[in-house]
């Protein structure tokens, strides 16, 4: 049996980090330094724990006794995988925070370093405790209250008070729903393990089971951000917290909601037996997921505040995961071997989205650090002054848009290809797949806007008073770290699919056991889906990249074939004007007809307020746009 020493060491480091921040008080440089070192250490131990569990192929189960209360703890393959993700993201954010808080006022920094370790400890708890009672409550409250404070301290109180409070209220509502749901199981004892809850559920009848699942869907859905619950708090919270914290919120906090949904629908529900109707719940998840991904992404397109844009787009991306979970349930119910493939896609996308969305929030943080504005209307042409940040932003934007040879492509391929193949006789699945494909173009539009108008184009040089420089190395290294992982996710799909397979094999009580993913074959360059001897679908990021590069060299040869020279000229505006701050193409004009067309999807208010100009609003709402 594998030990849990690493987990305890990790929690001990977090506790030390909290104490250090408390004791060192106003010596803010030292607080940042010790905090960074101790939290990084904790991340290291956490990753170690995850690797040990996956390496040994054995879940760890134990029971904690705290003042007479029993808390069941279970670290299986799935927890280990999410713990790995948490350790990577927490490390990236912590390292970024070190440089980011250098210029922040002392009072805030000290408080942030008090809350950050508690927040991470809460997340660790959520991924490891195995009940819906005392253990869950402890972990959830640590997570909710610390992140509430972090959000509150992210901006001047006048701006942050409301979104932070809204966040806390919804988190507490989710807590009530989740802990309350378990009481529907007949003979439930506060503190029963999840497996026990599942078993007790089987004796409590279909109605109780249905209400139980509805409450949990709402509870974890609030956290994950399914439509319309996500819209209530996510945009406010993610854009208010300071970017390294938002990176954790979007990267892993949201994913613990996905983790919860998986635990409920693919583990606990299995125990419920006849009371659980996989067909119905699969359909519910598909419909909810499709709505979430479509509405979230369309709303993202309307934002000029790039942090809000990233927040709405997080809602959209989570929609893909929920959709895939639903279609996996439906495929399983119809006995299709594709269930395992779609499920693997959902987990893969959780990992991918964790990484590239964190990278995007850190990019957002770098933009905020370097320019002081969160308004895309005031940016433009930053690639020339911030080349490294720009390049990393391009990678993240490319990946989240799911363009060929990116990590997003591989995971979306697993989910959508699987969905189409499994659902060729199902109207619902086919339509959901089409909406997912349709929405991919919206995602692309969001990030063309984000990258195109911040880093290419022109404008920041005229519209901002300060001189813009590339962010210091301490803000670049964590981004490069995440970018490297993002690239590995794109080009080593076989490795990640095996990792996910291993984590599921190390997990007991999994609904899809037996269907596995025998139709999915891995090869060094990619993945293939077979049905018998027939190849149904294939993806190979390396081959795609090679093809693209070879043809790009052909194009380059063609361009040089007549020995053409290049000359630098000013932009041509019909000869009447030079390009200046009055005629540059600003963000609010982008896609204006489309925004009008999709007005009914909501989130049309597009006013950006920067921290240093509380009174006046810079972004004007859809006034005098050029289409």
């Amino acid at each position, binding site marked *: 049996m594998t030990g849990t020493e690493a987990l305890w060491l990790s929690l001990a480091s977090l506790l030390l980090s909290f104490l250090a921040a408390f004791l060192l008080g106003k010596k803010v440089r030292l607080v940042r330094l010790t905090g960074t070192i101790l939290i990084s250490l904790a991340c290291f131990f956490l990753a170690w724990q995850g690797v040990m569990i996956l390496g040994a192929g054995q879940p760890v189960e134990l029971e904690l006794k705290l003042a007479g209360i029993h808390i069941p703890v279970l670290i299986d393959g799935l927890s280990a995988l999410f713990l790995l993700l948490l350790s990577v993201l927490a490390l990236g954010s912590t390292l970024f925070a070190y440089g980011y808080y250098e210029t922040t006022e002392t009072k805030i920094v000290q408080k942030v370093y008090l809350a950050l370790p508690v927040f991470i400890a809460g997340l660790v708890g959520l991924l490891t405790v195995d009940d819906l009672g005392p253990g869950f409550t402890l972990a959830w409250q640590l997570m909710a209250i610390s992140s509430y404070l972090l959000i509150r301290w992210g901006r001047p109180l006048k701006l942050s008070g409301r979104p932070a409070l809204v966040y806390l209220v919804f988190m507490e509502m989710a807590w009530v729903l989740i802990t309350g749901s378990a009481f529907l199981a007949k003979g439930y004892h506060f503190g029963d393990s999840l497996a026990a809850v599942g078993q007790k559920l089987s004796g409590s009848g279909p109605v109780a089971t249905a209400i139980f699942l509805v409450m949990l869907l709402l509870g974890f859905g609030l956290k994950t951000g399914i439509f319309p619950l996500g819209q209530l708090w996510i945009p406010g919270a993610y854009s208010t917290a300071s970017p390294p914290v938002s990176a954790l919120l979007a990267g892993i906090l949201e994913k613990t909601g996905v983790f919860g949904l998986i635990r409920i629908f693919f583990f606990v529900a299995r125990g419920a037996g006849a009371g659980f109707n996989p067909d119905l719940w699969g359909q519910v998840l598909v419909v909810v997921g499709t709505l979430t991904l479509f509405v979230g992404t369309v709303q993202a397109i309307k934002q000029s505040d790039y942090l809000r844009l990233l927040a709405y787009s997080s809602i959209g991306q989570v929609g893909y995961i929920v959709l895939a979970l639903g279609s996996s349930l439906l495929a399983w119910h119809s006995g299709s071997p594709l269930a395992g493939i779609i499920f693997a896609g959902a987990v893969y996308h959780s990992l991918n989205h964790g990484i590239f969305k964190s990278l995007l929030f850190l990019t957002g943080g770098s933009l905020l650090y370097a320019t002081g504005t969160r308004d895309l209307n005031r940016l433009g*042409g930053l*690639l020339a002054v911030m080349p490294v940040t720009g390049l990393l932003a391009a990678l993240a934007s490319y990946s989240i848009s*799911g*363009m*060929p040879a990116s990590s997003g*492509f591989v995971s979306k*391929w697993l989910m959508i290809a699987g969905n*189409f*193949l499994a659902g*060729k006789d199902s109207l619902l699945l*086919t339509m959901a*797949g*089409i909406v997912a*494909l*349709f929405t991919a*173009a919206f995602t692309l*539009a969001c990030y*063309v806007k984000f*990258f*195109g108008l911040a880093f*290419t*184009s022109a404008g920041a040089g005229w519209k901002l008073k300060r001189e813009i420089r590339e962010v210091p190395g301490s803000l670049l290294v964590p981004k490069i770290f995440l970018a490297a992982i993002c690239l590995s996710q794109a080009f080593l799909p076989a490795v990640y699919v095996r990792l996910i397979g291993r984590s599921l094999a190390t997990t007991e009580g999994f609904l899809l056991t037996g269907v596995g993913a025998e139709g999915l074959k891995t090869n060094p*360059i990619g993945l293939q889906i077979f049905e018998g001897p*027939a*190849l*149904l*679908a*294939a*993806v*190979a990021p390396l*081959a*795609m990249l090679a*093809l*693209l*590069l070879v*043809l790009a060299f*052909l*194009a380059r040869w*063609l*361009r040089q074939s*007549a020995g*053409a020279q*290049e*000359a*630098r000229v000013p*932009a*041509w*505006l*019909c000869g009447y004007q030079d*390009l200046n701050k009055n005629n*540059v*193409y600003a963000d609010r*004009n*982008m896609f*204006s*007809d*489309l925004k009008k*067309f999709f007005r009914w999807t909501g989130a049309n208010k597009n006013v950006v307020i920067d921290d240093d100009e509380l009174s006046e609003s810079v972004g004007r709402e859809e006034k005098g746009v*050029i*289409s």
Partner: protein
Amino acid sequence: MKVTAVIINLLYFLALAPFLEGVMRKVTARIQSRQGPPLYQPYLDLLKLLGKENLNAAGHPVFRLAPLLAFASVLSAVALLPLAGQSSFLAHSSDLMTLIYFLTLSGFFILIGALASGNPFAGVGASREMMTIIMLEPVLAMTLILGVVRAGSLNLLAATGGVSSARGLSYFLMMAVYLVALQAFVSRQPFDIPEAEVEILEGPYIEYSGPNYALFRYTLNLKRMFYSWLFVAGFLGFWLPGSPVLNLAIQTVLILVLFVLISVVGATHPRFRMDQALKFYAVLVLLSLVAVGLGVRGW
């Protein structure tokens, strides 16, 4: 042998795409009672542009990379095609999602190149181009998905074959929608809104000149040919005789016919405004949704 098949794909498209533009210009000219340039004029235009100077308004590497990658992406899509009813060598590592995304990718690079130029006209063009991609790509995707529903496979040969494997209500509805959408796919009037030369001066391409512009022109020609090819291979694929050479000859003739049709429509219709076009596209999207729905139900 297998790699040569990919090269044949590329050569076929590269050789024929400018000629089709020649056809389009000739037909348009005849409708407007003009003589029109010779059919080989687009080849001359490309050669001429390759010999000119590259003007760079941005100074970004992005501005320089965009035309190369736009061209490469659309050619990558072409390399995957099961031309003349023969599965591509690359079919083992690609499927129709790869194809759809490569096409989107070429649009993406056009947009990024346009935004990189910093010119507000290019910005307007890029914004319109992206809106067009969003609203039109689903029609292309759904045509192929109709094939997927029938064939139960995402393999390109199976899926394009699947489109016309059963010719029921869904087939005819999708064919009608695709035919209307084709005019927009090839961005001819009434749907040449992103370029709209008399209004926003070729939009995304305004700052591009010389060899860079030649690459964009070529990209556009290849894309036009691709969409026409897909119509022919998808909807009319069922009566191909089987021999690859004969298949290819028939496909070529059909593509030519299609281009004459596109030119006639283009020469006789004024341009839509963007908001009008969006509503038009939305109807097309809904109709193709209905078509796929009918396909799933087996009609």
